């Protein structure tokens, strides 16, 4: 049986109230008041589509062994690299085996579901198994644009395989149209769009019902037979019209998360799907539909296995873990939309030495440490000489990945002088669970969240960005876990 074995979601911690955006930019475009309700999820200054994908993928593979991963597909229209496979960075962070199938999917907002279909096909064909499919987006609208209000940041992931599936793959329908409602040229960072009415009436209201009906016909069901039909669109009127045309009851429609997150592009159908699976029961028929340069519609039937799935944060968990970002200009700077003064010191070159990065890629991406076979001491980063002063054994190490171990704060500080676009920089010593100590950045927190002895988990983030050469470097940071979340 081929299908979905697991799912995970990720919504970044910071939420920007849309009225705060409008308060800053409404003078330019007063019509945007229509879009200024609710809040949008905003990637932290050290997050992007790759890091959000890793977070969702880690949520997804909870309860599975990394060694089981047989492929990593990454879908996004906002990948940090055009050349350098982004999926390999994700796979590296998951510490997956390297002799597996990896691929990036991009170009249109349906790329997320296309990646799922590709994974389902590969598993069905027996070419690969246990493929992690992640999708994330972090799209930008210009200051004062509707997109700036409507888009949000987020990621979702599913594990596609043929054992213990929680949702069986039962059929698909796909279309591809060079219908340009939104587009970005290869050198543009901002979304552009054609007229709303045209997108709504000709795009969404045509292609989404076509896909839903098309799939229904293929599998001999009617829309009403499905427990949930999941499709993205933030146009409220268009949703009503589609539901009416298809005769769908409101409870069969998954919430589009517009009020709490915003449209997360390629990730959005997957994000809604991951959220729907949290509540799904065995026997539920779920249709997952994407939209953008055509549509994919995929039919899943939930199995008994869903009850056995290890608990995870999921979309709901991350939705509940929130902080206000009450500063619009901070958002602009985090997304590198406006130039800021980082001082002369900020102009100093920070090189990335690719040969070094390759030699140490498992340490940097996967948090590879060592465990001494002589004395049992776990240590990070990987060592050849045991750090235990009473042992000191040489070349007696076995590899151990510590990224999922978490730890406890050993010491910390909040630093007003360290160069950062999110001051104060917070960092400190972390005692890794199971052994080892390392000095790490803390993120997604304030000074009040830090205390000696407090538990932390590790999260994959942007370490530094070299604007001169457009290089994004990644490493792990520590996030304090609050007691109420545990």
């Amino acid at each position, binding site marked *: 049986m081929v299908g979905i074995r697991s799912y995970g979601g990720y919504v970044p911690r910071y939420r920007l109230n849309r009225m705060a955006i409008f308060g800053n930019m409404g003078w330019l475009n007063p019509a945007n008041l229509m879009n200024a309700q609710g809040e949008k999820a905003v990637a932290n200054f050290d997050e992007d589509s790759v890091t959000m994908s890793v977070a969702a993928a880690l949520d997804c593979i909870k309860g599975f062994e990394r060694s089981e991963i047989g492929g990593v597909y990454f879908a996004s229209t906002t990948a940090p690299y055009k050349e350098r496979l982004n999926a390999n960075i994700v796979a590296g962070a998951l510490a997956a085996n390297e002799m597996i199938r990896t691929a990036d999917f991009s170009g249109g907002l349906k790329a997320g579901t296309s990646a799922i279909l590709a994974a389902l096909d590969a598993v069905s064909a027996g070419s690969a198994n246990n493929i992690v499919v992640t999708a994330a987006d972090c799209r930008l609208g210009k200051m004062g644009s509707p997109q700036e209000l409507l888009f949000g940041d987020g990621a979702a992931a599913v594990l596609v395989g043929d054992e213990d599936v929680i949702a069986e793959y039962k059929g698909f329908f796909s279309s591809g149209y060079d219908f340009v409602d939104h587009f970005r040229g290869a050198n543009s960072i901002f979304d552009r769009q054609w007229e709303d009415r045209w997108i709504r009436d000709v795009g969404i209201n045509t292609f989404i019902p076509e896909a839903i009906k098309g799939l229904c016909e293929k599998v001999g069901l009617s829309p009403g037979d499905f427990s949930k039909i999941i499709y993205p669109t933030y146009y409220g009127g268009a949703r009503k019209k589609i539901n009416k045309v298809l005769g769908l009851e409101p409870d069969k429609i998954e919430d589009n998360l517009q009020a709490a997150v915003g449209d997360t592009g390629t990730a959005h159908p997957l994000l809604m799907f991951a959220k729907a699976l949290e509540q799904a029961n065995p026997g539920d028929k779920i249709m997952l539909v994407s939209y953008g340069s055509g549509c994919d519609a995929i039919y899943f039937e939930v199995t008994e296995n869903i009850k056995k799935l290890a608990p995870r944060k999921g979309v709901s968990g991350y939705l509940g873990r929130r902080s206000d970002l009450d500063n619009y200009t901070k958002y602009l700077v985090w997304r590198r939309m406006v130039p800021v003064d980082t001082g002369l010191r900020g102009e*100093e070159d920070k090189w990335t030495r690719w040969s070094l990065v390759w030699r140490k890629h498992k340490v940097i991406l996967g948090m590879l440490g060592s465990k001494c076979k002589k004395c049992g001491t776990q240590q*990070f*980063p990987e060592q050849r000489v045991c750090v*235990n002063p009473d042992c000191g054994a040489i070349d007696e190490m076995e590899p151990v990945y510590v990224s999922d171990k978490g730890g406890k704060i050993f010491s910390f500080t909040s630093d*007003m*002088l360290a160069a950062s676009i999110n001051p104060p920089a917070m960092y400190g*010593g972390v005692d890794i669970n199971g052994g080892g*100590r390392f000095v*790490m950045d803390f993120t997604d927190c304030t*000074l009040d969240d830090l205390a000696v002895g407090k538990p932390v988990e590790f999260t994959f983030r942007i370490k530094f960005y070299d604007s001169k050469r457009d290089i994004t470097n990644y490493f792990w940071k520590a996030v304090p876990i609050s007691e109420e979340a545990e």
Partner: protein
Amino acid sequence: MAEGIKDKVVILGMGCTRFGERWDASPEDLLIEAFLECLEDAGIEKKDIQAAWLSTHIDEINVGKGGNFLGLTLHLPFIPITRTENFCASGTEAFRGACYGVASGAYDIALAVGIEKLKDTGYGGLPDSPAFGQMAQMIMPNATAPGMFAQLASAYSARYGIPMEKVKEAMAHVSWKSHQNGAKNPRAHLRRPVTKEQIMAAPMIAYPLGLFDCCGVSDGCACAIVTTPEIARKLKPNEDLVKVKALQVSVSSGEEVWYNKWDGAGMLTTRTAAKKAYEEAGIKDPRKEISMMEVHDCFSITELVTMEDLGISEPGGAPEDILSGFFDLNGEIPCQSDGGLKCFGHPIGASGLRMLYEVYNQLLGRWPEDRAVKNPKLGLTHNLGGVPNQNVCSVAIIGRD
């Protein structure tokens, strides 16, 4: 069995520039200013110098790599010159090189110079450099020194159950004391006393270190000429001599940064170097025998924990000692009688030699009464370079016979 350095080397002369933002002075000017004082004090001629060690820390600006700057500026006649770089201990390392050169019998007279010209970057603070190598840049936080040292304070407070308020109060006293002492010193970078309230009210740079808990960056140069006791006695038959009693360096093993046993409330390197230095100098009870100290007060918390790491204060006892005035100029063991890094200034490569300069002159009773330590016999200097979890520490002890 190694005998150690005790009594094998005499400091024949020392020199030190005014520290500060010496916008008008080139490194050559700084070097010549300190060297002339040193040469005159030693009572020798340039040609008597047989070997030299040059300490500088920063490559990016300053005087470049190698020993050439020293040879080219003083036109030393093709003698061996070795550059030493070991973070903030670089100056003491140059001194150690010169002392070992003399003690080994290889040279009769050797010169140690420390210099740093930092105010040519165009921005405050030290130049950015991947101080711990390229890999550290990929995985270590983009930390500043105040941020790393600040963590000593939280760990210290937690380790000994001493409320942060008390730690802050003791840190304020440390800073207040240096400002009191620095104000009296014409060569100090900052000569301005401040009140404890002003220190305590200062904004936090890196929690819990405030503006006054952090040292600055200065230009400056200091040097020493060393020789054997026999030659010194011949050259200075009727004067007190200052002899080297101990020279120790300790470098982190990785235990602090990667292993889980370190308590974070003090430096393992300082503890190691101090223990060995007392053995080398034959000191049994440092709290009774040491007359004065110049320690690496890059941050107030560093000075606080160093009092314990050096074995002067009991573990957890430094705040009490500090607040009781034990380390004040008129206390039992005056510490930073010249204003320390915080007020005298901190040109990295020169700092170790600057500390020796202060102790040397105090031992010889050369300072005016208002800032003189009373009848000192043994003085200790201490440098700590790097950050608390990976650092280089040097401890030197010199004494008047």
